[in-house]
């Protein structure tokens, strides 16, 4: 007789169905804006669960149940080529339709597609084509179009019907372009400066669906090999994806985007000469706005395309040069015409760079991408060298991942340089004060947690020390520095680094023998001591002077200012200026840390993290190694502190609470411990998310959604967004075989 009774099949299914239905109920409670009131606390619950909408959620639960139950039957379909892009595309289109703004119209508070379409479909001044998209013929026609494309795409995949695949590909592109053109038409009708992205994102989604259908129609493969496909594309012509991306961005910039957008005007590229007339602007700008821009764009794109196609080094360098030159000319032009606009005081403009539309920035981004394509061609082996090396498959595998990394790097550079100016003021502030600063902090904490494996829950203390050092040196604390140390904010950076190094060692020394939980608690205590000391305004028995101004903190910390000879840079209130300062700081720190990661010290950190006793046995000074991790991490945080203090202008102890320390740890873990790009991506994603959710869910619900996302991440991808090589192995298991080695495709075979 055994106590271990096997569950009957019925019990298993009932349990599963029950769980899935419960999931539906939970989702019903999470989704939607339902709040109780003082008089009726249960209102929210009844509104969300005891209404007909519950059946929708229960149905979703049943779908999940069916999926789990019949997974073995479903799975083979899911690995077919084209399924993943179809799903990604569909999700992107849905995000574009339902989450993102379609217009920055001040009059309409919620300018997602639905409300905007309801307002637009009756406007007679819009052309019929645009109104049809917004639903003048069939209400909600955009959703209908999406459903048709998606269902046909799915049908083509399931039936493996090639003709249908091609039809879907064409249809998807057509619908995507239709949507974008409708948005653009509405934009020029409304004549407002517009930063909305909905139209572009849905186009992207439709292009992905089209790509999926085309892949499905083209391929003979039984199951998808996404990584293999990416490898083949990048091995075929390293710069090719960048050329495509750059050309598309450039075309959108020239043919659709607004170039100059003060209120009441949304000038396209072809309107520009009319807006400014030719007499006010310089000859170069006039030429640029007239014809030069096409010469530059087509010239660079052609050069990059030919260089890529022929894998020609010198052409590659030429394309890179042309791209960079074009970026510079574009910047000069932007400066020029916006200066003229400022002189004419268009929309209260006070200086250059104001009221510039998305167009020229997007074009500058496009030139950067094309230049990057040229660089990739120029710096990679030519076809001949590849064929000579063909036997060395390791080298080819390494080369492929290098190609992908480089392409991503170029895209990130282009985005980091030229996306922020096109964002709204709100997002620029978020970019600097949230994303940027926390990225910097995550880079620092990654040294301690990710590389050396020491859990630090008091990291924000060093940020506080950096900030207060700045406040002290700029003379904004009650305790004044000696006059020779009275410094401008940026000059405080070396001092903040030095003081944080010392503070890092001060924290490290007593904690050296501690590990794991004990270390975490000790660092947590350290963080709180610093904050409370600042708050209580450190007083010693014999020294009764006010030092830190207590909870009031420091005011009027000056903004950064650089003056070298004739060059003078002043930072003011505008977040965008700080973005570029931050970019310089992050790049400098990244360059240093990349070297550090592969240095002797980096290897010592890895050894201490993996096995401290063994590290000691191989002759590593574990004490010094751990102290250096604390010190170097802390100094990065100190730099962030200087930046924060001089940007925001006032600081107080409430900026440096425990919660922030824990968030930084979460960012590093979410992104991928021990990986620099991971830590940055984690911080960026999790600081962006709450701001993005602001428009989507009730404010009080945001933390819940973020919690859900972190939870799902830790369940399904514990190694983080961009895992470090070693950590990935640790969590995926050591025995898992590597991905199939990519095979070099000779140029003659192509894709």
């Amino acid at each position, binding site marked *: 007789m055994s106590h271990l009774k096997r569950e009957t099949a019925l019990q298993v299914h009932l349990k599963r169905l029950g769980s899935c239905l419960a999931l539906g109920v939970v989702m019903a409670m999470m989704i939607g804006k339902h709040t109780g009131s003082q008089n009726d606390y249960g209102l929210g619950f009844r509104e969300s669960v005891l209404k007909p909408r519950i059946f929708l959620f229960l149905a979703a639960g049943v779908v999940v149940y069916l999926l789990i139950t019949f997974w073995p039957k479903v799975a083979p379909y899911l690995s077919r080529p084209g399924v993943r892009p179809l799903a990604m595309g569909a999700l992107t289109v849905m995000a574009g339709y339902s989450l993102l703004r379609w217009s920055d119209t001040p009059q309409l508070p919620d300018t997602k597609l639905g409300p905007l379409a309801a307002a637009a479909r009756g406007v007679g001044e819009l052309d019929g084509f645009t109104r049809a998209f917004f639903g003048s013929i069939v209400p909600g026609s955009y959703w209908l179009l999406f459903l048709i494309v998606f269902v046909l795409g799915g049908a083509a995949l399931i039936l493996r019907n090639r003709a249908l695949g091609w039809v879907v590909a064409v249809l998807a592109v057509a619908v995507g372009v239709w949507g974008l053109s409708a948005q653009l038409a509405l934009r020029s009708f409304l004549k407002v400066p517009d930063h909305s992205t909905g139209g572009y994102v849905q186009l992207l989604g439709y292009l992905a669906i089209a790509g999926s259908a085309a892949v499905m129609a083209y391929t003979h493969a039984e199951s998808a090999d996404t990584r293999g496909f990416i490898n083949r594309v990048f091995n075929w012509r390293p710069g090719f994806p960048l050329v495509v991306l750059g050309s598309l961005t450039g075309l959108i910039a020239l043919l659709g985007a607004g170039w100059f957008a003060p209120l009441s005007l949304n000038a396209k590229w072809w309107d520009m000469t009319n807006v400014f007339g030719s007499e006010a602007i310089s000859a170069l700008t006039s030429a640029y706005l007239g014809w030069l821009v096409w010469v530059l764009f087509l010239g660079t794109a052609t050069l990059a395309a030919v260089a890529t196609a022929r894998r020609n080094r010198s052409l590659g360098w030429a394309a890179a040069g042309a791209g960079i030159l074009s970026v510079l000319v574009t910047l000069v032009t932007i400066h020029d015409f916006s200066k003229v606009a400022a002189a004419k005081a268009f929309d209260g403009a006070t200086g250059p760079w104001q009221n510039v539309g998305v167009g020229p920035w997007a074009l500058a981004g496009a030139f950067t991408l094309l230049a990057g394509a040229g660089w990739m061609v120029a710096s990679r082996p030519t076809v001949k060298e590849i064929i000579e090396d063909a036997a060395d498959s390791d080298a080819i595998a390494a080369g492929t991942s290098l190609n992908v990394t480089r392409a991503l790097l170029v895209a990130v550079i282009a985005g980091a340089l030229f996306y922020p100016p096109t964002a709204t003021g709100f997002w620029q502030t978020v970019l600097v004060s949230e994303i940027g600063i926390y990225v910097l902090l995550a880079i620092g904490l990654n040294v301690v947690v990710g590389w050396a494996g020491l859990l630090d829950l008091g990291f924000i203390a060093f940020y506080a020390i950096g900030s207060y050092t700045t406040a002290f040196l700029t003379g904004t604390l009650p305790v004044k520095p000696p006059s020779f140390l009275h410094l401008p904010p940026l000059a405080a950076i070396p001092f903040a680094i030095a003081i944080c190094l010392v503070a890092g060692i001060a924290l490290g020394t007593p904690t050296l023998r501690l590990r794991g939980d004990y270390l975490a608690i000790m660092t947590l205590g350290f963080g709180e001591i610093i904050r409370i000391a600042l708050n209580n305004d450190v007083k010693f028995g014999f020294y009764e002077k006010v030092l830190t101004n207590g909870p009031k903190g420091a005011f009027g910390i000056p903004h950064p200012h650089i003056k070298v000879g004739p060059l003078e840079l002043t930072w003011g209130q505008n977040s965008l200026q700080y973005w570029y300062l931050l970019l310089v700081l992050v790049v400098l720190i990244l360059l240093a840390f990349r070297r550090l990661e592969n240095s*002797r010290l980096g*290897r*010592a950190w*890895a*050894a201490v993290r*993996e*096995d401290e*006793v*063994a*590290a*000691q*046995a*191989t*002759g*590593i*000074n*574990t*004490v010094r190694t751990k102290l250096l991790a604390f010190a170097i991490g802390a100094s990065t945080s100190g730099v962030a502190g200087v930046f924060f203090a001089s940007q925001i202008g006032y600081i107080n102890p409430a900026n440096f609470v425990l919660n922030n320390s824990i968030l930084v740890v979460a960012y590093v873990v979410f992104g991928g411990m021990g990986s620099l790009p991971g830590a940055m991506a984690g911080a960026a994603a999790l600081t962006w998310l709450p701001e993005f959710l602001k428009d989507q869910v009730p404010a009080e619900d945001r933390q819940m959604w973020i919690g859900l996302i972190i939870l799902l991440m830790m369940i399904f991808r514990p190694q983080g967004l961009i895992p470090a090589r*070693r*950590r990935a*192995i*640790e969590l995926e298991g*050591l*025995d898992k075989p590597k991905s199939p080695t990519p095979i070099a495709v000779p140029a003659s075979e192509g894709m």
Partner: protein
Amino acid sequence: MSLLEVDNIEVRYGAIRALKGMSFHVDEGEVVALLGANGAGKTTTQKTVSGMMRPTLGEIRYDGIRIDGLPAHELIHLGICHVPEGRRVFPMMTVHENLEMGAYRFKKPDQKVLKRVFELFPRLEERISQHAGTLSGGEQQMLAIGRALMGKPKLLLLDEPSMGLAPLIVAQIFEIVKEINADGVTVLIVEQNAAQALALADRGYVLETGEIVLDGTGAELLSDDRVRAAYLGEEIHA
């Protein structure tokens, strides 16, 4: 003069005296075995010699220099390399990276030594780019020894190299230790597997609760009744 002289050392874990005034010596070129049951103080002795622990009393001299109290990362520069108990390779590093870590005290790993390690352990060369965590127990032990050799030791401290390994592998590893010794490396080995260790060792010491109770050449100890009773599991009818 002996290469290593341990003179009346006492080591404490808090209130517990783990070593109670222990003295022994290791001559250059010798293999010396420390034997004893669990808790006798074998590992503590080795850790104290390699600098991971400090004696509270007594002196340790190496090559005529006093080394007690010096940290491990300085002793390694004198040529004392320690293979700690329980293999302790870096599991997420490849075999090659592990070996490179062994040469951490040098700017660059010595390729000749690397070649010699691969001669001694051809298995490691086969698995050179494999992660150490995927190796079998015996291979990990080989890697741990190979890693210590990369530090070009004059005195190699081996802590229970046979622990948890199949008899065949143990024999193989002891064979290799003999070769390492033939290369001119002095070896101080801690073992529970007395028969194997004494067959290999020139001399041996038997530890009980932190004190040396017996010493002699390997052959003497092997034939000693008390050793046979306590460590070789033979019943003596006397």
